[in-house]
């Protein structure tokens, strides 16, 4: 009996990536012991609806449970997070003191919402959106019809939350340090179109400012103090400041892990602090930082749904393959968002983009397709309520087409290169996609 057959594979992190990875192991014929460890007490559920349909009240939180696509025959260890990893002894320590041996490990611990780091953090009425509990708590609080909701951070989650709150007829103020929403992700040129749409929907959008502190009465948040001195009355705050990678439990494991992610090689194997890949430990999803061949092997983390699925399946395949048969993981990042009656999709990465062009439709109609260029190549394609053509442009991005990529399209305006208005290089470049969400504090 091999080591893998005896001790089995342990998947740490029982959300989308963990589930799809476990399924892929079974689909590829792995029939040894399989254990899924999760810190939340729930069966794996889908997070994107939490800031959309669940928040809007269109979908009960329980309905987000993910379908299981294959028979897992797994042992579930839910509600007890992993707290430490001992690679020498090949055991995982859980919060309840139990240890779990493993032959191979798949790390899919994901990320957690960054909480309010400033003054007033202990007040009631301040929410984040990441887990089912978050969504339930926020939903009941919204049902009490707060007089004004303040949202801190104009990233994807902040914008989606603002849209849902407006749909519920609530007064909303969105505070963001950038000139427009989604500025770090899409740049201020596209951001300006979204700002227009957002204001049209009745959101009080406050750009270029920060919340300095929250204060309250009887333990309940009542006021937001802006950096400029202005004080806004509020009784519900949503903090949407992005996420931090869940790597704290790996602190003593001797792996190259920090708040920006767990560093992996191209095959998704975790790298030790000595710089060597651990042949038995793989990572996938939000937590994994790997050199993406599509971007010149630049280390990146991709915090989007599609990557969680694809990378977990890829890592699972490599886990079952021999050491000489490890296939590098290539991924074209993509995400979608629904807000203010718009469907926004991006394929590729806008990081470092130096040009932007609308290639179909017009910005004035708020329905268009735009491409981002970097040094003469097309690096990303954005559909703004115009998703049907996106696959053609996504193919062009993946193929590294020149900028702009597709000429002679229907509904094509005269193509002008615009300034995308993306922020300059980040302070710590290896943080990858982490900083895509607005960093506030």
């Amino acid at each position, binding site marked *: 009996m091999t080591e893998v057959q005896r001790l089995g594979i342990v998947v740490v992190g029982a959300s989308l990536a963990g589930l799809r990875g476990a399924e892929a192991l079974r689909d590829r014929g792995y029939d040894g012991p399989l254990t899924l460890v999760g810190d939340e007490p729930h069966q794996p559920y889908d997070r994107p609806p939490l800031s959309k349909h669940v928040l809007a009240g269109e979908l009960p939180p329980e309905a987000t449970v993910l379908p299981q696509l294959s028979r897992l025959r797994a042992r579930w260890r839910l509600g007890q997070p992993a707290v430490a990893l001992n690679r020498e002894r090949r055991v995982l320590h859980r919060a309840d003191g139990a240890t779990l041996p493993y032959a191979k490990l798949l790390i899919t611990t994901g990320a957690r919402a960054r909480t309010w780091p400033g003054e007033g953090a202990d007040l009631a009425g301040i929410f984040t959106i990441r887990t089912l509990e978050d969504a339930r708590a926020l939903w009941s609080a919204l049902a009490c019809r707060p007089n004004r909701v303040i949202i801190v951070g104009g990233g994807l989650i902040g914008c989606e939350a603002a849209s849902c709150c407006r749909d519920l007829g609530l007064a909303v103020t969105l505070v963001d340090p950038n000139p427009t929403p989604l500025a770090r992700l899409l740049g201020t040129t596209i951001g300006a179109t979204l700002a227009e749409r957002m204001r049209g929907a009745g959101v009080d959008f406050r750009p270029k400012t920060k919340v300095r502190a929250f204060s309250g009465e009887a333990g309940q948040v009542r006021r937001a103090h802006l950096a400029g001195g202005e004080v806004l009355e509020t009784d519900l705050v949503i903090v949407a400041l992005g996420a931090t990678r869940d790597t704290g439990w790996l602190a003593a494991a001797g792996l190259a892990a920090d708040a920006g992610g767990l560093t992996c090689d191209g095959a998704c194997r975790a790298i030790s602090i000595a710089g060597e890949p651990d042949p038995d430990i793989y990572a996938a999803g939000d937590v994994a930082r790997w050199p993406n061949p599509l971007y010149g092997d630049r280390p990146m983390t991709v915090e989007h749904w599609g990557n969680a699925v694809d990378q977990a399946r890829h890592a699972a395949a490599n886990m079952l393959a021999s050491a000489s048969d490890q296939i590098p993981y290539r991924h074209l990042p993509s995400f979608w968002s629904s807000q203010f009656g718009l469907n926004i999709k991006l394929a590729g990465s806008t990081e470092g983009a130096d040009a932007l062009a609308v290639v*179909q439709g017009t910005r004035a*109609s708020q329905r268009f397709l735009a491409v981002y260029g970097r040094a003469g190549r097309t690096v990303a394609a954005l559909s703004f309520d*115009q998703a049907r*053509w996106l*696959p053609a442009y996504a193919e062009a991005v993946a193929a590294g087409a020149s900028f702009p990529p*597709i000429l*002679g399209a*229907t509904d094509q305006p005269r193509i002008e290169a615009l300034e995308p208005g993306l922020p300059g290089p980040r302070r710590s470049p290896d943080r990858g996609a982490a900083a895509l969400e607005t960093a506030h504090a």
Partner: protein
Amino acid sequence: MPDETLFAQILDPKNRADPYPLYARMRETPVSRQADGSYLVSTHAALRSLIFDPRLSSEDLPPSRRPATGNPLKDWILNPIRNRVVNTHRPLIFRDPPDHDTLRGFVMKEFTIARVRDAHAKVATLVDALIDKCRGRDTVCLVDDLSYPLPVAVICELLGVPEADERQFHAWATRLATALEPDARHDEAGRREIAATFDVISDYMRRLIREKRRHPADDMLSGLAARGGRGRPVMGDIDLISTAILLLVAGHETTVNLITNGMLTLLRHPDELEKLKADPERAPRVIEEILRYEPPVHFRTRKALGAIAVAGATIPAGSSVVLMLAAGNRDPARFTQPDRFDPDRNDNQHFGFGGGLHYCVGAPLARIEAEIALVTLCRRLVAPRLLDDPPPYRAGASLRGPKNLGITIAGIA
């Protein structure tokens, strides 16, 4: 050397009953130039890539041309204006963005989930009534008895077209549908006939729309014709008429093939018929497989606005492109054992409803109609057997389906 006559052979009526061997030959060259300068696209991968390509335009209908009348006022002033109007207000399947999107938006707003759901009960009642009429006979003529009258009644009700008028436009619908058939479309006499029919049916629609505005009812046409409130864009009358005609024609000419092809396939695979009879829950799988295996629409044409590189070939700008959807549905590179009718296959990404921007608007309705019709036929026809195999086919190579389907029965349950 790729065969440059394959498309001509597809159009040849003698290949109507079984075009699939031709499709297999076609796929050997995924993008192949034909003698007439058009490009045939036949593999699943190439079709998938082109169906999302914004350089392929749907505005490929030849300009409308009305016959000379000898009356100079008509020939030199009126008809050119009418031709121009028709050319600029084509139905949305022949339009590109942004106009296409605007028009489709109007239609989708009326093609609501509630309307489609309500159609469910109506379809079930209709199917039973139509089958009841066959009592006492030993043969069912499926097209005349069910496949044709069912979708027509459903689309008339949904649109709000009086069913009594149906006789009148049955022939018009058939003639207009030939706009999808390349031979009729490029034939001078065919084009004139299409233009003349369009005028007649337009007059009918104009009157009906006026009536709907005067007495709005809870139907799609009333909704589409409604005067918008503050600032809401209203559909222009000419676009409204061409949209109404499109929905009516599509309702007449496509679902009929889905139901008939479906029953033909089930009768050729009696074990699958029995399985569906025993387990009506299988219906969605059966319908999806019919849409792959014997789709109601076999190809659509487009025009390349720019040069397009695909599957190792380059389609030059300006070319006519034929998307052989039914050939992609049988591509062994995408489907295992593609020529096997297998409702149990997974990941059945067929082109039965097209794809991309022009994906069939009526797909949810067609699925409901086919599902109820086939399940009920399997349940109620006792010992059904095909009378002729293959059955006689309608003329169209694109809208392909039997002209009629004789089924002998031992009774009606």
